[in-house]
């Protein structure tokens, strides 16, 4: 009987996972504050510069450029939709939050690609890296995006930087996966031909593997953009600026009108980007 009691007591004692994580996070913050701050600085710098670049144009010029781009990329119907949609956002006086959102998305995507594509390349060449990253990627793609907010908040505090970082973590899996997949799918005989003519690993990568993997990589970039978009409102919960902010605020104060207008802005930018850069 005593033994059973002991076991029961052992089972019902709370495992201090929370404490452990706290210790770990504190350790990281205390010992890696330099690199973390540097990273945050780079992200902030990127967002600011993209925003400055985007607001360099008058909104109407901006809309015109986007409309022409839409025409070039797809067709004239889309360019009309783009012009009307962005025009509406401008009219609703949501232009500045729109640019902030766009700048955050662009930064998130650029960072996710800069980190994700090389990881994908390494993953395709190293069985060890492949085995290590596989469960991590599975894990990252199953847990809900809200969960990313917590570590981002802990490391980088409230603000746009945290939002971007949570977005990067959420959107980085497809570029890694699809770069890896694209390179894996390149015919072995092609690589063999490269070796047979004396190519080194860099030449094999640049002249054979990456060009062959390009369609797959493009698909990864596309999915990365779409996932970043879906984080716009969620990222606002940890203080990211942009269109998500008024949406959240309207939820708190139950302002139906504001909520609808801001929500419309999110929907429009999502549709515009999806239609312009998405696959048919």
């Amino acid at each position, binding site marked *: 009987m005593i033994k059973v009691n002991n076991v029961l007591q052992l089972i019902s004692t709370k495992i201090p996972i929370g404490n452990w994580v706290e210790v770990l996070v504190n350790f990281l913050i205390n010992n890696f504050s330099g690199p973390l701050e540097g990273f945050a600085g780079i992200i902030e710098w990127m967002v600011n510069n993209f925003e400055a670049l985007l607001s360099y144009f008058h909104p109407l010029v901006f809309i015109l450029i986007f409309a022409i781009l839409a025409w070039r990329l797809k067709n004239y119907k889309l360019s009309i939709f783009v012009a009307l949609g962005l025009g509406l956002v401008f009219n609703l006086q949501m232009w500045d939050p729109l640019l902030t959102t766009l700048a955050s998305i662009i930064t998130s995507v650029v960072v996710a690609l800069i980190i994700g594509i090389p990881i994908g390349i390494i993953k395709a060449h190293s069985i060890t890296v492949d085995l290590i990253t596989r469960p991590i990627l599975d894990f990252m793609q199953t847990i809900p995006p809200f969960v990313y907010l917590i570590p981002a908040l802990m490391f980088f505090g409230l603000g746009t930087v945290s939002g971007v970082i949570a977005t990067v973590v959420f959107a980085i899996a497809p570029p890694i996966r699809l770069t890896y997949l694209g390179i894996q799918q390149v015919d072995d*005989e092609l690589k*063999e*031909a490269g070796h*047979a*003519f*004396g190519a080194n690993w860099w030449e094999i990568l640049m002249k054979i593997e990456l*060009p062959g993997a390009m369609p797959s990589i493009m698909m990864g970039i596309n999915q990365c953009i779409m996932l970043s978009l879906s984080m716009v409102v969620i990222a606002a919960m940890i203080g990211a600026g942009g269109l998500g902010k008024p949406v959240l605020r309207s939820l708190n104060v139950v302002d139906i009108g504001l909520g609808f207008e801001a929500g419309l802005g999110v929907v429009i930018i999502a549709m515009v980007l999806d239609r312009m850069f998405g696959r048919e």
Partner: protein
Amino acid sequence: MGKIEVRNLYKIFGNKRQKALEMLKNGYTKQEVLKKNNSTVGVDDASFEVEDGEIFVIMGLSGSGKSTLIRCVNRLIEPTAGSIKVDGQEVLGFDKKELREFREKEFGMVFQNFALLPHRTVLENAMFGLEIQKVEKQQRIKRSKEALNAVGLDGWEDQYPEQLSGGMQQRVGLARALAVDPEILLMDEPFSALDPLIKKEMQSKLLDLYEEMERTILFITHDLDEALKLGDRIAIMKEGKIIQIGDHEEILTEATNDYVENFVEDVNRSRVLTAKDIMTKAIALLYPQDGPRTALHKMKKNNLNSLFVVNKDKKYRGIVYIEDVVDVINNDELEFEDIIKNITKADPEDNLRKLFADIADLNVPLPVTDEDDKLLGIIVKTNVLANLASEGKFDQ
């Protein structure tokens, strides 16, 4: 000294290679090693020499280790044991960098499934090797264009591989290998994926190129016809071992074991001997300026009842029969041109069975013409029958 010297080469796939090697050296077979040691034997104690400037063919059924062997020569596959010398240099002694340089300058390789880069044009594909060699751009374009020209692909430079037929794709593969001006061409079943007609054409093309450029070629095939057509010498592989090496005659007549015999059996002489082997020179020919009277004279003199007509450049025109010639002489309305008749022609590569079928119900000799329609010779029925009879295996 041979151009390539391979000595006691082994390649074993799997984790317990040394153990497997020991087993092979103690006389175990490929199957036994697989069963007892869970390793696949790719090449088992292969030794051969390839002379400078010859076409050396390695032939064997699928899975016999041909691809593994040819890939050991330029170390695309790392051999487990043995020695490979090219120009007296030990290939297995090279470090990574030396090996790359050696591959660059020594080898051109052609692959079974072409291995062309789909995102590159024909010209860009042909340039690949030169690009790796860091040849300057103008020079690169010039040399790849020459190579494409040599394989007959002028004007296709800007197409993409998928726009080309299989035969043309392999020409690009060949041009890519030739462009780097290699000492040795390694060809792993380069024509196996092509349909028979294109395959023949490519074989002839390769022989033409070979005559022009004097290179050493190591050629892999599973097709005995192809081996006999191209190879100066032939090595036969079975289960990773080289079981016979020899020239045509030796391979066909001195089959050293059942395996080779079986291989050779269906390629008996009736398939090996072709029209060009048994054709004879025509005793007399007619030329356009010859009139009916000359024709009759030539026929009587040579005791013939028909004559073949050719142009000045020996281009084949047709045949005239003695009764028609007599008709023309007796009838002013008829022109000599009108009595030139067409009959079946033979290709110099036609085998005895085909010739027999063609000639069976013909009362005149069979003309043999090349692709330019030039008359090369004639075949008489008795000649075909004699050869078939001496073969003795024509019982189908």
